[in-house]
């Protein structure tokens, strides 16, 4: 029976795709709920994933069909079912199912309802395909596939210019990352035996040991370049916060739980390759640390609840890369497990936090600015409770999911300097610094999460009104008609739903299930060793060096103190209305403004890279007409000018001239003949 699931693992991407197709083609005509086929497809895919989970091994591959055979570039549609794959599959399909159920309530009445679920089905197809594929190029194909789903879903409310801009930004920045991935594949293809890009060939020990030094460092660096775009790391993270223009379930599913973790997955998948390049690991760790800290600092001051969560996602992804980067020498195995564990737990509690934010937004009638509402804990009891659990998990408080995974990352970082020392690497001290910065980030994380929580649910009750100073100016222009009904997040028909009421059970039940996961998955998988045991059945995992790393009480204690301190500070500042926040902000005005302005990274990119490209484009446009075309026309003028100005003079009709010319020519010819 279990072999059945492995052999038919293609059902996992196919069923959601089928659901999506049904939703796209038939839902409107036959008047059924477009969410049903997609939800059914994804839920069935989840069951298949569980079946495959139970029976996978490191070397299980399933050839589905041919795809590309262009000369020596052969890319079969082949799936790999191992520990890492089944882990990701189960997580992706489980979270997707809950998000789809939530969205069927959240998106109710939207004119694009069938399109939404069709795209979600397509996304789950691409995402599961990404983690299943047993070939770097096939992974790349799905990698771009999830990107395009993300593009179409960010731009879901397409009439909204900001959504169109955000969608394009996301696609473009991801394209920049894709180029890194593509270059890595070109390089691999050129040097691996038989031009075979399958994982078991590229990541085989024999292949890796034949890599030149340039390839050993270059290829993982290029892969990491790709990961920085997809997983929103410095310097390519800027698209993710803007991606919040999409519907909130999309943010929860794609931009928190699944797609953005693809970069982490890719690096984890390539661990045998990355582990051979400590220099690259250091780059990964530093980038992850910088991202985690920067995003946490920005999240401190944002007023948009979804944006706080977006920056928090960026920051947590940075955490995962810190872990991956710390895998020097004997820590390699621990680091990979820690990163994947955090990816796993984060998917649950971050999806929960996003959906809870969506529930708040739903109840507040499209308002997401935290300054415009407050004290909602009595009005939205379920949302408040589940948000609190998600927040505690994110902050890493015992015994929530986040505590266990964050602790493992810190443990890996703590062990890295010793491992680096054993390998005679000189940069081991950097990991020490990163360790303390990670603790600082943990403190900041707890603070901003509970700042958002207290601002939203505590204090005196306040509902948004049009008179709020922060309310956007009322747009009484002509466009209002066009965009009515789908121009704004949550401005869709509420069907008797009033502002300020708790969401319907179809939305709160997924929240409660996710909250249960946020409490339990850490405890169930972490200390029991179940998680690591499952990952043992992963390609190349056996060969990873590993030492003994005991649970460190010291680290656990420090991180718990940091988390509790962050929560306590947030409580004193935001639980009741006070002037403390504004006084603090006033005293460090430049820092506060920089954080609020997201350190002006977007503006910087706009002023440099975008201006450069636009300038070059304008130059090319002018050059084409004024130079290249002129040159061509100039060349074309040569015969005409030659005829008119030079040759025509000699065709003057004077017989004497012709005779003289003839005689002269004959004379010259004779001379030449005589003297040569």
């Amino acid at each position: 029976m279990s072999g059945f699931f492995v052999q038919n693992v293609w059902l996992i991407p196919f069923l959601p795709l089928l659901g999506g197709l049904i939703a796209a083609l038939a839902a409107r005509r036959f008047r059924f709920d477009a969410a049903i086929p997609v939800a059914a497809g994804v839920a069935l895919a989840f069951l298949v994933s569980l079946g495959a989970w139970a029976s996978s091994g490191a070397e299980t591959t399933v050839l589905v069909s041919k795809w590309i055979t262009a000369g020596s570039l052969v890319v079969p549609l082949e799936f790999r079912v191992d520990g890492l794959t089944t882990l990701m599959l189960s997580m992706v399909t489980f979270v997707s199912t809950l998000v789809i159920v939530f969205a069927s309530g959240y998106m109710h009445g939207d004119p694009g309802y069938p399109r939404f679920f069709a795209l979600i089905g397509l996304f789950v197809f691409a995402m599961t395909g990404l983690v299943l594929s047993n070939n770097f190029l096939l992974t790349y194909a799905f990698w771009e596939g999830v990107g395009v789903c993300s593009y179409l879903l960010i731009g879901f409310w397409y009439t909204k210019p900001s959504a169109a801009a955000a969608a394009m930004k996301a696609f473009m920045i991801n394209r920049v990352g894709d180029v890194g991935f593509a270059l890595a594949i070109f390089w691999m293809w050129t040097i691996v035996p038989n031009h075979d890009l399958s994982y078991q060939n590229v990541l085989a020990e024999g292949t890796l040991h034949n890599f030149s030094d340039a390839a050993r460092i270059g290829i993982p660096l290029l892969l990491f370049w790709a990961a920085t775009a997809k997983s929103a790391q410095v310097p390519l993270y800027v698209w993710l916060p803007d991606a919040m223009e999409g519907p909130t379930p999309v943010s929860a599913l794609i931009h928190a739980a699944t797609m953005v973790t693809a970069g982490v997955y890719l690096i984890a998948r390539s661990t045998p390759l990355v582990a051979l390049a400590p220099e690259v690991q250091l780059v990964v760790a530093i980038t992850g640390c910088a991202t985690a800290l920067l995003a946490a600092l920005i999240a401190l001051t944002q007023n948009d609840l979804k944006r706080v969560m977006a920056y928090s996602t960026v920051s947590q992804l940075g955490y995962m890369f810190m872990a991956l980067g710390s895998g020097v020498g004997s820590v390699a195995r621990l680091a990979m497990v820690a990163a994947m564990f955090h990816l796993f737990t984060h998917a649950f509690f971050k999806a929960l936090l996003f959906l809870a934010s969506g529930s708040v937004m739903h109840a507040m009638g499209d308002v997401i600015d935290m300054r415009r509402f407050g004290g909602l804990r009595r009005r939205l009891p379920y949302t408040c409770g589940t948000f609190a659990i998600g927040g505690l998990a994110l902050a890493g408080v015992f015994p929530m999911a986040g505590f266990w995974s964050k602790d493992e990352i810190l443990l890996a970082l703590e062990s890295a300097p010793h491992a680096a020392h054993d390998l005679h690497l000189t940069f081991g001290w950097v990991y020490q610094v990163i360790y303390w910065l990670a603790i600082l980030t943990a403190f900041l994380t707890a603070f901003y999460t509970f700042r958002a929580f207290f601002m939203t649910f505590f204090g005196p009750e306040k509902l948004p009104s049009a008179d709020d100073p922060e309310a956007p100016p009322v747009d009484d222009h002509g466009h209002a008609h066009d965009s009515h009904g789908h121009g704004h997040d949550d401005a869709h028909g509420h069907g008797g739903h009033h502002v300020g009421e708790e969401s319907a059970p179809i939305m709160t039940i997924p929240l409660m299930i996710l909250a249960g996961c946020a409490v339990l998955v850490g405890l169930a998988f972490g200390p029991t060793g179940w998680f690591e045991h499952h990952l043992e059945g992963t390609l190349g995992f056996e060969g990873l060096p590993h030492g003994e790393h005991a649970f460190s009480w010291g680290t656990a204690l420090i991180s718990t103190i940091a988390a509790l301190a962050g929560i306590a500070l947030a409580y004193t500042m935001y639980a009741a209305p006070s002037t403390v926040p504004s006084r603090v902000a006033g005293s460090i005005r430049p820092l506060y403004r920089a954080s609020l302005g997201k350190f002006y990274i977007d503006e910087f990119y706009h002023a440099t890279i975008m201006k450069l490209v636009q300038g070059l484009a304008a130059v090319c446009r002018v050059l084409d007409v004024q130079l290249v075309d002129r040159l061509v026309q100039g060349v074309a003028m040569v015969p005409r000018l030659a005829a008119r100005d030079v040759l025509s003079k000699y065709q003057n009709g004077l017989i004497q001239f012709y005779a003289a010319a003839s005689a002269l020519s004959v004379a010259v010819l004779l001379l030449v003949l005589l003297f040569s």
Partner: protein
Amino acid sequence: MATLLAVTVFLPLIGALVLVLTPGLDKASSRRIALGASLATFGACLVLLAGFEPAVTTPQFAYGPDAGPYGLSWLSRPDVRFALGLDGLSIWLFVLTGVLMITAVLSSWESISDRAPMYYAFLLALETGLLGLFGALDVVLFYIFFEFTLIPLFFLIGLWGGPERQRASIYFFLYTLAGSLLTLLGVIALVVVHMQYSPDHRLTFSIPELTRGLATLPWPAWYQVDSWTSPQVFIFLLLLAGFAVKVPLFPFHTWLPLAHVEAPTAGSIVLAGVLLKVGSYGLIRFNMAMTPLGAAALFPLLATMAVVGIIYGALAALAQTDMKRLVAYSSVSHMGFIVLGMLAMNDTGMNGSIIQMVNHGLTTGALFACVGVLYDRYHTREMNAIGGIWNRFPLLAFFFVFSSMGAAALPGLNGFVGEFPILVGMFAESWVAASLATIGMILGAFYLLLMIRRVVFGPLVEPGSHDDHEGHGHEEPRPLGWYEIAALAPLAALILYIGLFPEPFFSRIRPAAADIVQIMNLERDANARAIAAKAPIAPEPIEASVSMRTLESR
């Protein structure tokens, strides 16, 4: 089947003659005749495709024995033959012509009312020229069809084009003619060299014979082999002149934006979809297969031209506000990829290059058709004047986004299965060129998405919706007609099909590509040995059975 091939080539011409000779045809009946003729031609193309043996590398559907001489004697002395046949290199371009011509007819359905019989007659005559060109097995026949295609397109642009149509058509005509005359010289040089130095001094104009015969000549014996003074370099450059203009390779591309902007929609579809492929087809057929040493010696120059074309074309496209101009410049960029693929001179790049010709024809054809639909309604192609058409034409928005994604080489759609092998193949030959070309991947997505964002996304903007003068209020543009959907839907279907199931395409392309690459490698190996020996040596004679797998030997 040989007869069917000849009939297929001339079927559109018969349709054209019917259109011209029947008196008093109106718009409705002439377009119906044109559609019928192009559908019949396409049907014949499909029959040929069904009969095509994927693994055979000799020309198929040709008269005469498998080893040649093919075709019927046309001029007996010199032996110019009327020889038609298809191989893995030409079969898909042949079918592509059949497909795109239907799109061209359908996208002219309502927009052409003026002198409709003449218009469709030219369009069909153009199809005969293109089909004949891809089918020709004789260099003279090839050249005749090659030049013949200029005439109908000249009139299509010059009579049914935009405001600057006359300048555009003359510019286009003269530019391509000037280049192709040099190409003719190059072709003659090939024929003469072959006659002079082949063992039996045979004067032949047959393309397969020339290809095989030239490969066995002792090229390295004649000149300093690793320098640009090889005779192949000279011939290569002559041949290049015409094809580089047709492709167009940077910096010979300036006729393209002008011709596209002025051409009617159908003209643009055929021009970008098929006529540019004539250039790249010729490059592979003649330059790569007959003068590979020239290609190898000129590699730095050619790769630079291709890469600069890719980046420059993309940047220029980025700065355009006219949609047609944007798509025209995108063609410069995309054709650069195709040339880059063949320059890799390995089978991966060659496969990618050949399939990418088909892919580019489909996506660009679809994009031009989309722009044409908008132009028919709004009489402008300015992106600043049109916006948010998604709500107005949801189906058109779908086609627009879909073909853009195909052009941006998104995996699962057709552009990817061509572009990726091209870059992979190129990376193995020159990682610098391939890495630089990837910038084109980024910019390519940039200008396409920018167009999508301006035209498809955002609030609805229509020209004329603000100045409702003369009292006749705001007129709703008509929704998509069946003919417009029928023009776009097959292209979209093919874009998806090639992306998901490229194997039927590659299985027919692979043997042909392998054959050409084998010839190139033979000559390059001999050359390399000559360089290593510091003395020119003759190549080893190639065995006919290696490069020719015939129907019998299968």
